[in-house]
């Protein structure tokens, strides 16, 4: 597949870490609220209300531009994109067209060990429209409700060159982009609707389809896989792929025609007269100085500061939340041990459950578990059990889990009693052992483990047996 697939992405991310919307003072905290409560004359587009640019949003967009190694413009301008839709209260969207805030960047994506550089064409700012709410499904709903809480939410759109070669690569790109935005602390990708993707897909030499409305991380790969196989099937049957815009239906996992080239939208872009061109000349150094440590730098620091392996450092710095989690644990535990448990065990268990680390358990609990492990209260196997039980929400307190699951190692004297008993009950085995049958030793260890219900520490059993056998 890889060679003749051409993919370009337009990724829309809500700058949901901003306090207020793009052009008014309404809060960006609109998730889970009653409909239409987080609105004002500006984001409702009431006649006479005027937009005023949120300077912090411009700063955030510049941060994103810099993190993607873009050129930052000196003068930026907003445009009106004119179209009718009920979720668009002014009948136009305020977006950027000519003079976007940032252009010509790159983002390196790791695909199966090979690092590929994806060119970023532009990064621009725009406002989110409101949200249409259907009763039941879009087909059966008798009416449409509109919720303008989302109207005016600040978005950035990151547009790539058609440099991506596979759906998997596209997913990796989006994950990496998300990670960088979260590093910059401008974006929380875990909120619903925070990320939406349009994808341009074609087979080499064929016409391109634009797929709209991909709104989940997994959806990107699925939508692209579907669309590519659709185009390949057409090619195989000798049917010509036409240039068109297609809609991705997440529930049915397919793409359907939205409009063809002949019905192409006419947006009548023109400069927004209510917002004067904005000079951001001289902003760049200040914003650059305020940039946080980005993944690559953090990876190098982890290796140097904590002595962890490159692989562990890479796994732990991919997501800022994992990196921060690790650092909290490493403060209190041996850093390399902490790395093994965070990068291998915890991250692995999270991936297995498709869970985000923020939905896991706090680092304090990990510190406790590693503490119990260090003082020999639980075994490695016990620690894994505790972690799993926490992630499965069986119980909340590691101490309770250790108790309830009987994970604490058996006391030494209980092991001693068990060993003595086994030696008394198995004279034949002892004789065999003394006669040189090494396997008999393992048999005895097994018997002790049996007696302690497997809770004895095998190493300790081993030691005790040797001691006692030498005496007798």
């Amino acid at each position, binding site marked *: 597949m890889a060679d003749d697939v051409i993919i370009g992405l337009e990724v829309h991310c809500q700058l949901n870490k901003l306090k207020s919307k793009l052009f008014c003072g309404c809060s960006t905290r609109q998730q889970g609220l009653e409909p239409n409560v987080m609105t004002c*004359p500006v984001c*409702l*587009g*009431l*006649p*006479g*209300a*005027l*937009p*005023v*640019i949120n300077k912090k949003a411009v700063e955030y967009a510049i941060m994103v531009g810099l993190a993607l190694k873009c050129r930052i413009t000196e003068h930026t301008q907003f445009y*009106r994109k*004119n179209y*009718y839709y*009920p979720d668009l*209260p*002014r*009948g*136009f969207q305020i977006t950027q067209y000519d003079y976007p805030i940032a252009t010509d960047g790159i983002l390196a994506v790791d695909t199966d060990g090979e690092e590929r550089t994806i060119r970023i064409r532009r990064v621009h700012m725009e406002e989110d429209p409101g949200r249409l709410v259907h009763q039941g499904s879009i087909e059966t709903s008798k*009416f*449409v409700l*509109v919720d303008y809480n989302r109207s005016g939410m600040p978005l950035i759109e990151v547009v790539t060159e058609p440099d991506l070669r596979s759906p998997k690569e596209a997913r990796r790109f989006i994950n990496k982009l998300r990670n960088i935005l979260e590093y910059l602390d401008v974006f929380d990708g875990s909120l619903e609707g925070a990320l939406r993707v349009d994808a341009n897909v074609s087979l080499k030499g064929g016409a391109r389809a634009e797929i709209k409305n991909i709104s989940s991380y997994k959806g990107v790969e699925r939508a692209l896989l579907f669309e590519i196989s659709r185009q390949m099937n057409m090619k195989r049957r000798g049917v010509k792929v036409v240039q068109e815009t297609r809609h991705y239906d997440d529930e049915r996992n397919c793409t359907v025609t939205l409009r063809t080239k002949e019905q192409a939208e*006419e947006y*009548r872009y*023109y400069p927004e*007269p*209510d*917002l*004067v061109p904005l000079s951001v000349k001289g902003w760049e150094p200040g914003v650059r100085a305020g940039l946080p440590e980005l993944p690559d730098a953090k990876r190098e620091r982890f290796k140097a500061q904590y002595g962890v392996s490159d692989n562990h450092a890479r796994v732990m710095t991919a997501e800022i939340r994992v990196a921060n989690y690790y650092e909290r644990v490493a403060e209190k535990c041996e850093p390399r041990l902490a790395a093994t448990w965070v990068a291998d065990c915890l991250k692995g268990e999270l991936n297995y459950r498709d869970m985000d680390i923020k939905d896991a358990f706090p680092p304090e609990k990990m510190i406790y578990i590693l503490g119990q492990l260090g003082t020999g209260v639980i075994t490695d196997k016990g620690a894994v059990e505790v972690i799993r039980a926490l992630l499965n929400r069986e119980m909340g307190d590691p101490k309770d889990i250790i108790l309830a699951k009987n994970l604490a190692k058996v006391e030494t004297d209980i092991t001693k009693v068990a060993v003595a008993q086994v030696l008394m009950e198995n004279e034949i085995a002892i004789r065999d052992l003394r006669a040189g049958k090494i396997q008999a030793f393992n048999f005895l260890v097994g018997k002790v483990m049996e007696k302690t219900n497997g809770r004895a520490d095998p190493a300790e059993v081993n030691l005790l047996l040797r001691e006692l056998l030498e005496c007798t």
Partner: protein
Amino acid sequence: MYEESVHKTFDRIKRSKLNAFITLTEQEAVRNARAVDEGRVAGKLAGMTVAVKDCITTRGVATTCGSRILSGYVPPFDAEVVARLKREGAAIVGKSNMDEFAMGTSTESSYYGPTRNPYDLSRVPGGSSGGSGAAVAGLECRMALGTDTGGSVRCPASFCGIVGIKPTYGLVSRYGVIAYANSLEQVGPMARNVSDAALLLDVIAGHDPKDSTSVGEADGVCYSDHLVEDVKGLTIGVPREYFGEGTDKRVEDAVWNAIMRLNKLGADYREISLPHTKYALSAYYIIAMCEASSNLARFDGLRYGLRTGRDENWHTTFSRIRAEGFGEEVKRRIMLGTYALSEGYYGRYYLKALKIRTLIKRDFEQAFKNVDVLAAPTMPFPAFKLGEHMDDPLSMYMADVDTVPINLAGVPSISVPCGFAGQLPIGIQFIGGLFGEPKIIRTAYTFELNTDFQRLPEGF
């Protein structure tokens, strides 16, 4: 004492044949006057009756823009200029009539019926702020706010024999002004004399952070301080392009007489040229229509305003509401603007118009290197008959020939009465450089003090 005068004003309005208002706010005005009388409210405009053009948003008071599509719309917020009026204690008497969405030169396109000229009821008051102009001239308020996109304050000022100022673009906040053409329009004061106009400008001018196009350059300037009788050493430029074909001889004479009068009072004058004037009208209408086509897209009946019939699917419903809610002229401008912004035409029309705009700006910059103010007719002819231009939109557009270049350049202009054609007033406009309000106010004030063209209409 204010209360009594407010009552008298409303008696007059209710007996009036002018149809200057769409909505009256009698209770609020009376309450305000009483509060002033009782010393509970003070301010620069305390107790003064002010009319507000109906495209300026007023909290809790219907705001229609003269359009059916906004019938029933009651805004939840005040325009910045209205907030400033209230802060200074003004008694707002109501919302004045206007051409639908300020698109017109006669106030005939209002859904709420035409306004009539107090000097001749068979004639138009000018537009689009015709309700404001007629109300001020007809003593139905002391002063009024209008908006001027291509002459909409100065035209009715000229036709109704009063004073109107189109301020420098950015001097007055547009927050709460329902946009027709954002890059051109400004709120402007209208009054029976220059002093009142300057006072009203003092109240409404000044930077507003809610309007990104508003500026603070002239903050702190007191326009009333420039009510000075002195034009000695002042150089007046007379742009010859403003006396072209189509200009009524009586208007031309009245304007020249005014210039000669100022010359006698110590001002110099010289003829100058603003060479790109002939392109101004086309450029103006393209820019205004393009912006209007986008500005008016929000009126779909979904959230406010007109909602007729049964709801069907979205496209059918909003198309029907727009078809029923907008008048002819508005539809014409939306369609032309939509066309001109479309792919393939954008460069040919909109971009070209912007280039002409730049050339016109330069014309003015060049002129103001050598002169202090410009003097020209406000309108090429006096008030015309109702219905005279209604069937010929182009001839109506032509009436704006002397006012639109000023909006394209963003410079200020004041129109004051300078004579009569029969009983119909004639206006002269004094145009200043950017933020040149003090100079044009001084010129107009000096002219007003030394002439006698402020006459009440017969029977008033």
